[in-house]
């Protein structure tokens, strides 16, 4: 621990020497950032993660083919110069579909985790602030939701709401004629967001409730109250910065969780429906041909594995960087 301290001080001094005094202040975020970039595995994770987001944004533009177009002359080809990751049983380019799948995965992961975080923040802080019967009720609700098996619950929700949401989207199309309502893709995505948010919110709610309850009793918050700091200042300067670390870490891990969960639902046939590419339905489409055309399963499989591993490494590094007291060295 002592060596780490001198290290940081040295870096800080040299930086100050370079950029003049007080360009870099020592605060939570700078320290955390330094600790993070020193962790090699998390930096690799971060780079892969950024690459994944870039592909998700740019993939459809830079993809070499159309994800729907079948080339029936070149069905089920192994990886080669024209099709870097081969083609599938219908003659579609695997790499193109993986790039589009990245977009699906990113959309689901971002929206589903945001929805679940929002739900968790609202319900968790409601329980902690109001207390009493509200807290009891919400805690019981969390217990109940956590005692329902997660994958089973998510697929039950997805299976139930698929048709009503599809009908609704269809009705919207009839009424408005907007092109975004013309396909069922958005209905699929809405269903998957809902299902994933519904099984993951209790984790956040419990985390946020615990953070608020424990931080409010800490001496430094009491001290701030004693010297007459305003509510808003206590919230902005003491509560949020201290609660943010664990939440960011949880967010990172559940981002990976959401990508895996989306592909699980698509694998089971209740997630994103073909022809819209998702890594999960790419695996389930080709699951039976693993023996003869292993690359068809290996390509999307390895993609999920690498992305999920990268995000988990990043999460681990963030955990060490943001919560140095709980991290085990």
């Amino acid at each position, binding site marked *: 621990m002592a060596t780490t301290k001198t290290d940081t001080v040295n870096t800080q001094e040299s930086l100050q020497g370079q950029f003049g005094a007080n360009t870099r202040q020592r605060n939570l975020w700078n320290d955390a950032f330094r600790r993070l970039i020193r962790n090699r595995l998390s930096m690799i994770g971060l780079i892969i993660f950024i690459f994944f987001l870039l592909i998700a944004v740019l993939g459809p533009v830079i993809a070499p083919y159309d994800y729907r177009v079948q080339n029936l002359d070149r069905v089920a080809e192994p990886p080669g110069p024209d099709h870097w990751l081969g083609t599938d049983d219908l003659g579609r380019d695997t790499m193109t579909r993986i790039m589009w799948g990245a977009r699906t995965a990113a959309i689901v992961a971002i929206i589903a985790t945001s929805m679940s975080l929002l739900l968790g923040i609202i319900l968790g802080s409601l329980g902690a602030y109001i207390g009493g019967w509200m807290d009891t009720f919400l805690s019981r609700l969390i217990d*109940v939701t956590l*005692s329902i098996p997660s994958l*089973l619950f998510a697929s039950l929700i997805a*299976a139930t709401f698929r*048709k009503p949401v599809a009908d609704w989207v269809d009705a919207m199309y009839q009424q408005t004629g907007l092109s975004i309502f013309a396909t069922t893709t958005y209905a699929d995505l809405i269903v998957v967001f809902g299902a994933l948010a519904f099984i993951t919110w209790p984790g956040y709610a419990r985390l946020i409730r615990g953070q608020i309850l424990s931080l409010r009793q800490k001496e430094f918050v009491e001290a701030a109250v004693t010297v007459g700091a305003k509510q808003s200042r206590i919230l902005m300067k003491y509560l949020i910065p201290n609660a943010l670390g664990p939440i960011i870490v949880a967010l990172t891990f559940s981002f990976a969780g959401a990508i895996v969960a989306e592909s699980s639902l698509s694998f089971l046939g209740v997630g994103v429906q073909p022809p819209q590419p998702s890594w999960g339905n790419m695996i389930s489409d080709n699951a039976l041909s*693993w*023996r003869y055309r*292993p690359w068809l399963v290996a390509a999307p499989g390895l993609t999920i594995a690498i992305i999920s591993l990268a995000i988990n490494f990043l999460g681990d590094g963030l955990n060490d960087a943001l919560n140095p007291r709980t991290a*085990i060295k």
Partner: protein
Amino acid sequence: MVRYILMRIIAFIPTLFVVLFITFFLGYIGPVDPVKIMQQQRRAQGVYMTQEEVATIRHQLGLDRPFLEQFVAYVNNVLHGSFGFSYFDYVPVWPRIQSTLAVSGQLALGALAILIFIGIPLGLLAAKFHNTRIDYMIVGTSLFLYSIPVFVLIPMVLIVLVLWLHVMNVPRGWQGIFTSSFVLAAFLLSLRSLANIIRQTRGGVLEVMQNDYIRTARAKGLRELHVFTRHIMRNSLIPVVTVLGLLVDDLMTNAVFIDLAFNLPGLGRLFSTSLTSRDFNNIYGIVIFTSVLIMVMNLLVDIIYPLLDPRVVYD
């Protein structure tokens, strides 16, 4: 303690009631109308039902009654040990779930054995040699196995074991427990929890080792083995027990994919086939059954805590 357990078992009732309500509500608003399915099946056989017949069947199944009445009837059935019957082949749900339990139970016990006899020792090993190459290897592998969904891992493992190494045939169906396919299935089933248990054991041991009483134990000349087994192990097992609470959920998630891939007649496959055919009564049955398992497991965890740590006292 007995009082506490009794209270917890009584607390099962409202939780279970809410679980039943949620699943039943999902089914009520869900897209599947059993009478329509029946009509389609009859039509396929060349029999056309009249409006009166449809109304009669609807009445017999109680589907014309209001939501709350239907729900009360369903709860009443569940309390009498019946989850209704499948609307597709009219087989009662509960006997069907029971018929999968032998296979799933054996697999789950296999996975539990792997967790206890491989997971905990690996965690201890990683802690013993922490920040060495052994530690990095164990922790890295476990994080690797934790990150990858099992339906990705299955084909990859099969590619390696069957196509490259030729050590086994493609596992198909249930072949008893002394086979390579059982070992592979149990191992894959345990993976998520295995990674968790290794992490928790390692973390627990490292945290306990920093305590003063460990230094005291060493200072008074206790042999390292005794320090480890008497002082470190017992205290570091507390977080490991917490993993047991997540066990059923993790096993069930993996079982869905493993049963499907290896064609095992277990609970997971019953779930995925029911999901594909939208056989909702089967789905509710499995969801509720697994929820009860999770609740029982959580109760067990809470009973084990005070046995390991006398400071944990329930009033």
